[in-house]
């Protein structure tokens, strides 16, 4: 078991455990923090896959911006575990069972796909480097890139519309 | 008019900001220039316990009840100082000198009790001026800190200067530079 395997398993277990903690923590702030842990482990996976750019963007965008906003909002609202009413117990169990079943279905369906013998290249391969991605992004994908700016504009206008006091 | 210490006297400039002012950066740099210039100025502070500044000639410190050269108290409890005190900080009780006490008190009457409330005292020096006997004068020391308000009511024991003969060193120290003036009289 090489260091890559060890890292993989470590990060996977960390990701799944923290994801489970996200949905089971009573306190929303804890959920946020666990989610940050999840994001970091996913970033770790990216690094293992040598997708450096995505790894760092993941940290900046998700951990650094999105989750800060979440934390911000939760803190502003001062939500504690007391203030979050729980769903009915059976409802929660039903939800969990449904999700589990979904997972089972997925796994059963996809365990014998035609690509199951393929390997994902770890540690090597340079497509994840910023230079290659950048080149591709600003040549082939320049139109979607510009389009995403429209998306941002609309989100910006939207946030103003919603957030501005009248 | 010399250099003003504050800008209080200056009229406020309400003209609209120029472009240079409106970007602030220049003003900030000007301000920083001012502060950096202070880096090279002489320091206003001294290493206090080691170094001390001399008091001014007219500094008025803690009160002292004087003795004459033989060690007799000058105060006759005439009460003029108490009358003169604008803060009404001084109280006293007079007593007759008994036979055999001549070496203690210069006159027939003396202050049996003499108290100054240092919390009220404003160190104006009027008591000193009022005293006909040069019995009270303001020294060059501060009133030290104390834990209770009571501690600031200085009794006679606290105020009377040490004996010039028996405790010569302490006397000299307490006397400071002020006694010179006394001597002239």
């Amino acid at each position: 078991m090489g260091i890559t395997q060890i890292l993989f398993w470590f990060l996977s277990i960390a990701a799944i455990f923290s994801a489970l903690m996200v949905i089971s923590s009573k306190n929303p702030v804890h959920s946020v923090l666990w989610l940050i842990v999840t994001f970091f482990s996913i970033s770790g996976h990216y690094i293992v896959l040598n997708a450096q750019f995505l790894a760092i963007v993941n940290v900046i965008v998700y951990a650094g911006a999105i989750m800060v906003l979440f934390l911000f909002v939760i803190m502003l609202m001062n939500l504690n575990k007391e203030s979050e009413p729980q769903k009915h117990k059976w409802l929660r169990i039903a939800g969990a069972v449904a999700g589990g079943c979904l997972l089972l279905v997925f796994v059963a369906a996809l365990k014998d796909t035609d690509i199951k013998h393929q390997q994902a290249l770890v540690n090597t391969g340079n497509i994840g480097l910023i230079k290659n991605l950048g080149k591709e992004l600003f040549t082939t994908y320049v139109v979607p890139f510009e389009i995403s700016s429209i998306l941002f504009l609309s989100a910006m206008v939207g946030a103003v519309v919603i957030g501005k006091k009248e | 008019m010399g250099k003003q210490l504050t800008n209080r006297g200056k009229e406020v400039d309400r003209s609209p900001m120029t472009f240079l002012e409106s970007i602030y950066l220049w003003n900030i740099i000007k301000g920083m220039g001012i502060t950096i210039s202070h880096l090279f100025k002489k320091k206003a502070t001294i290493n206090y316990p080691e170094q001390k500044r001399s008091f001014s000639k007219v500094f008025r410190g803690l009160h002292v009840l004087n003795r004459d050269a033989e060690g007799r108290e000058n105060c006759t409890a005439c009460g003029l100082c108490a009358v003169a005190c604008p803060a009404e900080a001084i109280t006293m009780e007079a007593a007759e000198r008994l036979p055999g006490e001549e070496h203690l008190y210069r006159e027939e009457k003396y202050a049996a009790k003499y108290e100054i409330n240092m919390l009220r005292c404003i160190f104006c020096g009027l008591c000193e001026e009022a005293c006909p006997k040069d019995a009270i004068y303001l020294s060059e020391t501060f009133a030290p800190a104390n834990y209770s308000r009571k501690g600031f009511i200085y009794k006679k024991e606290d105020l009377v200067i040490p004996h010039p003969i028996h405790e010569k060193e302490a006397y000299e120290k307490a006397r400071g530079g002020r006694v010179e003036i006394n001597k002239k009289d």
Partner: protein
Amino acid sequence: MNALILSAIFGVILMFSGILLKQKAVIRNIAIAGIVLLLAVNILEMCGTVLFHVNTHGMIVFDRFALLFNTIAFVATFIYLILSARDMEKVGVNYAEYFALIFFILCGITLTSSFKSLLILFLGIEIISIPLYILTGSDKRNLKSNEASLKYFLLGAFSTGLMLMGIALIYGARGTFDTLSINMLTEGKPSLLIIAGMLLLLFSMSFKVSAAPFHFWTPDVYDGAPTVFTSFMATIVKAAVFIAFIRLFDDAFGVLQSQWQLFVAIIIVATLFIGNITAVFQQSVKRMLAYSSIAQAGFMMMAVFAMNTDAKEGLLLYAVAYCFATIGIFAVLIKMKDYTFDGFNGFAKQQPILAATTTIFLLSLAGIPLTAGFLSKFYMLKAVMITGQNLWLVIFAILMAAISVYYYFRVIQAMYFKTGDTQVVEVSSTFKWILVILSAVIILLGIYPDIVLNWLYF
């Protein structure tokens, strides 16, 4: 391409016009001018004049189908704006921003009608969705609007998640996002990955078009949103997503039709059933229209099911018929004080022209012949019929259409045959004229739809 770029530019212009301009009329006129310009350049492009030459690397292809749909969407938006733009003032203070958002949505619509890459589909759908979340919640003091917005947002984001998972699985199987390449299967039975991905995409797209059983957000959202925006989102946007739907399943999964057809059929049946049956029990016209839009979605889904020339033509026609009629009804509905059926009592006495045009719109929605609604439904049925072996679906759809007559006619009955005091805001004569023209167009299309469809071929 013309329309895509210009719509984005106009979105930005309108965004800033809110800061720079104070008069609402000017802003409104800019918006209307913008939509006219969009329409003009789009028609130019149909005639072969492309103003902006952009190499999209095959991700966006403006074929006739896309261009025609864009034209339809722009015309519908134009009508929508001249009918209802004034009423946006009542929603909130961000007047210019609403227009900006609408133009951004139009930009998304041009994308969803012309994508050849799943990436563009995803971006297009998001550009449509995000402004919609906001428009839904734009009536900030109204709790219903807030809740609708939140609900729409959470469920929309959830379905986006499903969609992305689908795209990821497809990417895993094919290694590309290009829809046409995805369709090129190697041999034998298709990979499980692609089937799973396709189903996830099917579910999420069904969600976006509010097909049952993914429809549950629709009534609440349509009901809660300010009526002006419900009008936009229930019509033009919905049609646009349908175009995306049919494009996706035609381009990317055409070969797999046998795999998904059953699912689509089930969705159609459920949608028609739930939409129509529930609409019958509504008391509010607005809510009824929400359910009816679900029901109409069921019909439009038949185009996806059949996936042949008739289906595509029919879907375009359906888009026109449905958009025009629904926009018209909503424009009238906005003027009403009371959204219940009883609110329409005696409407014909007070506003004969409004009542008459509304009747024509309702007849069109119900699919009564001589209206565009009939022909569009007819196209759908025909498209399914010629696939053969799906008679049961057609019969079911027909029965449901008959049920739909019940709730549409309730409005007509209230307007004409019942007496009451309808509270109506004063309407201008321009408004009436536009409604009359709109209903004339609907009838014209009901008699002679080729004036639209001929644009597809020449």
